[in-house]
């Protein structure tokens, strides 16, 4: 264990912004990927299979993600 207190842990020896920034960006991007995929799944479930596909103005963009 290298940390004597929570503030020491957050501070990361003066590199807190860089270290936590990196982990935060990673967390946000991976979570966003999961959320966007879920939204796409929900949207697909709403349009009944065998029926007409639901077209929206940004359907292209959404199918890319």
């Amino acid at each position, binding site marked *: *264990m*290298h*940390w004597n207190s929570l503030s020491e*842990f957050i501070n*990361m*020896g*003066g*590199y807190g912004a*860089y*270290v936590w*920034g*990196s*982990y935060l*960006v*990673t967390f946000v*991007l*991976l979570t966003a*990927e*999961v959320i966007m*995929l879920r939204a*796409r*799944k929900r949207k*697909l479930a709403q349009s009944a*299979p*065998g029926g007409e*596909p639901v077209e929206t103005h940004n359907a*292209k*963009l959404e*199918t*890319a*993600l």
Partner: protein
Amino acid sequence: MSKSKIHWYKYAAPVNFYPLAGKIIPFFTGLTIILFAIGLYMSFFVAPVDFQQGHSYRIIFIHVPAAWMGMFLYVLLAIYAGIGWAFNARLASMMAKAIAPTGAIFTFISLVTGSLWGKPAWGVYWVWDARMTSTLILMFLYIGFISLQSSIDDTRRADRAGAVLALVGVINVPIIYFSVQWWNTLHQGATLTARSFKMAPSMLSAMFVLMGACWMYAIAIVLARVRLIIKERERDAPWLVEEVAA
């Protein structure tokens, strides 16, 4: 082949692959959570502080796995796209399409975390050295693949066009990998080589656990995405109507 109990070719057909993927996704999701928890604990509480870089080096535990994933996934994408093109295997093309966004995200993470590590280590967020420039090109290749595919309405034509781009672009992967040897880069050399590990064993194992976590995450999310792509593309197929109704 005939003696094997598992008929591998069977799963090249979306009709058989779709339910199989659905069954194995929870397994990979579980492993993702477990490995991330262990890996993050090791990164912050087990791995010692670096005598030169202090705690700033802890970015490595996310930076290196993300960079590797960006490269591995691109090679995998190119292989699937190539198989889909050469053998007219539509599931392989769908896999390539499903891998692209995840590969792009990992490449982007490696660029951002690298830049956040560059500032304390080198004093700059970005330099146009060979490693960083070639990784940026990898990012553009992913974006190019995604935009090219979504700009062509005929899906099989889109797959073929994407395959050409993916296969030409694969030359960039060895360039990224060897860039630190071929050119004089600001970026440090390989952390791991066949002969030596330049890291403490606990640092190395933390990195490998997070590497595993990223792989499990990538498998789970790509399978989930390929299921959606199957559903979108084969929406009129009778088997899918039955599958969804069931």
